[in-house]
């Protein structure tokens, strides 16, 4: 059982949280927190994080038992944080604007371009939020 809170949206047991076109962008597993974050090639700067390991991109990953943070190496901008609050519950903040993608979370919801995805519950989807 996995519940991810992503900018006021609750995503339950979804395999991929966000995808762009046919390419998965964000996946999270729990116990411990394991993150895969792969930006599309159209992004201004490359970023590929596979299971908490940086494969490509100027970022630094800081992780502990219940938390994973990804920072830019230039300026220490926080672009991603996942904190596991319960064994099956994780809260995620994301901000990919430093890499040229207009996608970020705040108290309103998940901002994508000029749209806001907020207060949804998605259960058992292969891809919870598909952008394309």
């Amino acid at each position, binding site marked *: *059982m996995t519940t991810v809170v992503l900018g006021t949206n609750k995503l*339950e047991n979804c395999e991929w949280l966000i995808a762009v076109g046919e390419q998965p962008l964000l996946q999270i597993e729990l116990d411990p927190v394991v993150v895969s974050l792969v930006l599309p090639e159209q992004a201004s700067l490359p970023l590929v994080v596979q299971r908490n390991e940086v494969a490509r991109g100027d970022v630094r990953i800081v992780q502990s038992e219940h938390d994973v943070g990804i920072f830019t190496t230039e300026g220490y*901008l926080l672009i991603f944080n996942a904190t596991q609050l319960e064994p099956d519950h994780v809260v995620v903040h994301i901000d990919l604007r430093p890499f040229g993608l207009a996608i970020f979370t705040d108290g309103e919801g998940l901002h*994508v371009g000029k749209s806001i995805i907020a207060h949804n*519950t998605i259960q*058992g989807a292969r891809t919870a939020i*598909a952008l394309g």
Partner: protein
Amino acid sequence: MSPELRRYLELERAMLALDEVRDPRADTLRDAMDPLWFDLSDEEQGWLNSRQEVPLHRPRCITLVVGREFYVEPMTAEFRAAPGGPIKGWYSAA
């Protein structure tokens, strides 16, 4: 998500997709799901039973068409979270 629950949901999505177009092979998949049900934990079975009506057969639940506004100039160092050098000459830094 456990591997058992992942397999169950995969089959369920396929079954519902076939069911929607009245394909009789949906029943075959439904029968295949039964033994998987008993591999699930009580908590997983409870979660499956408690679900609201959602379009589970759709592999993507929210689809948002994004245009050029999705790809922007990267946020630069002027937004940097930490100062580039030491803070000097301040009476109080915070």
